[in-house]
């Protein structure tokens, strides 16, 4: 049974899996909204620790942001390939997306360890707690996305991911693009909008 056939059997005529994913993403807006607004309230409260304007490395974070943004392109190309029945290119783009996601997470680990060396720990100040919680939650979302992508890659390599299951790739793709969208917001509001300095 194909997903399209399955969708046609639902009361709405739409895929309930896809509808469920969109509802989930809508609820995720509330989660990230709470973390971003908490950060905004606390970004000026850095006590004796480093201030956000002193510690952020904008050129480095810009490269990470660009990498994540381009992973959205490779994700949509993976879906497009599978919808055409091109399983080889689907695997190629899935793997590329996972690698770009891993590079982004690696960059975040590097950023966190640099901040720790410069004296910004999780409990240093309300600013640091809010910053690490927000960006850490996002990093966990990207890491989960990388795991999902690698699962799809393995499934495809074993010959279990065909055109008929393109909706599975589409659902993971929606999650991945959402994580990218959240970073578009975080990058602008947290990094690019001028931050307080000590």
């Amino acid at each position: 049974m194909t997903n399209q056939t399955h969708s046609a059997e639902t009361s709405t005529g739409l895929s309930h899996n896809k509808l469920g994913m969109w509802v989930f993403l809508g609820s995720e807006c509330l989660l990230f909204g709470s973390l971003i607004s908490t950060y905004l309230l606390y970004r000026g409260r850095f006590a004796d620790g480093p201030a956000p304007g002193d510690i952020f490395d904008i050129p480095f974070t810009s490269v990470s942001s660009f990498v994540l943004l381009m992973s959205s392109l490779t994700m949509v190309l993976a879906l497009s390939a599978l919808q055409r029945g091109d399983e080889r290119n689907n695997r190629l783009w899935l793997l590329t997306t996972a690698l770009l996601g891993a590079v982004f997470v690696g960059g975040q680990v590097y950023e966190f360890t640099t901040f720790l060396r410069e004296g910004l720990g999780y409990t240093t100040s309300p600013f640091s707690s809010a910053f690490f919680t927000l960006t850490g939650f996002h990093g966990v979302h990207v890491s989960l996305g990388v795991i999902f992508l690698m699962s799809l890659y393995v499934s495809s390599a074993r010959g279990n991911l065909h055109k008929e299951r393109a909706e599975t790739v589409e659902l993971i793709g929606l999650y991945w693009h959402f994580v990218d969208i959240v970073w578009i917001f975080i990058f602008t509001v947290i990094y690019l909008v001028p931050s307080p300095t000590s």
Partner: protein
Amino acid sequence: MSTETEHTTESEKSDDEHGHEHPSDKKYFQIAGILAILTALEVGTYWLDSVPGEILIPLLMIMMVVKFFYVAAWFMHLRFDNSLFMKFFLSGLVLASVVYAIFLTVFEFWHKG
């Protein structure tokens, strides 16, 4: 031959009506190019010391919103899919925006920063 063409046209029309027609890979590359240019412009503002915050912040917000909608509309296919998906997503997004705008107002964020 004629019947086949008519059948194909009808099939494409049906796809359009149901919103399942997705863009070509070339279009995706074009969108990625626009997103890359917008990101470069955003990052470029970091080195603009002379621009006051009253101009810089709205400028950054506009570019952020444009990037947001390009990804949602083209890569997440909201532009092509059934509008019910967009309504569910926007419900969460609007609810979050309203709730946290009130939250920030209560804590006097807009005055104190």
